[in-house]
């Protein structure tokens, strides 16, 4: 369990760095969705299923769709 926790946290940090480094905004949004999903699993491991459910519904679901709707109204690539 300890090892799984460490792996998930390392993946989380890598995702956060990758979101900042990516020039393609659509890829950044997808990586951000993966970040939210791993964060939901981490909340579950921290014995907080309430927050995990909210994170999975809002963070991975609705926020991603909102970002994609915004990208479809503007440019896809960062300048």
């Amino acid at each position: 369990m300890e090892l799984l926790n460490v792996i998930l946290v390392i993946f989380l940090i890598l995702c956060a760095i990758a979101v900042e480094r990516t020039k393609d905004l659509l890829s950044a949004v997808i990586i951000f969705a993966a970040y939210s999903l791993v964060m939901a699993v981490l909340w579950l491991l921290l014995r907080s299923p309430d927050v995990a459910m909210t994170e999975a519904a809002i963070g991975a679901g609705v926020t991603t769709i909102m970002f994609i709707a915004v990208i479809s109204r503007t440019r896809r690539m960062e300048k």
Partner: protein
Amino acid sequence: MDDLIVKSISRMIIPFIQLYGIFVIFHGHLSPGGGFPGGAILGASIILYTLAFGAHKGHLKMPHHLSKRLESGAILWYIFLGLVGIWTGHLFLTNRAAGFFMGEPGEILSGGFIPLITVAIGLKVGSTIITLFHTMIEEEHDA
């Protein structure tokens, strides 16, 4: 998006998503979850419908005047439940002393007004998310 597979899968899966959202809302005082996650799940199901079937059909499913009424009605219902406490001579959002039905612990009809308030929060959050998404999609049509 005009894809047969996406349309069939979402037509199959949307009732289960909505049933799960309603379950989460009604068990807000017994199990993890509550008004906010349940309402977000309900809103996400309508967003999935709009993504699969297009903005026009999504609007027909959840028109603006309906979601407007749901939003205002839910928050008014919440405030009304809070004011019941003041009318019976206690503080705002008083639960047991204001005479709400407490019931057996562990059943759906228990906990005073908590299930009623959770339903109000669920409706409010769900219709707000749907309105946000539909407004963004709508502007895309005009431009």
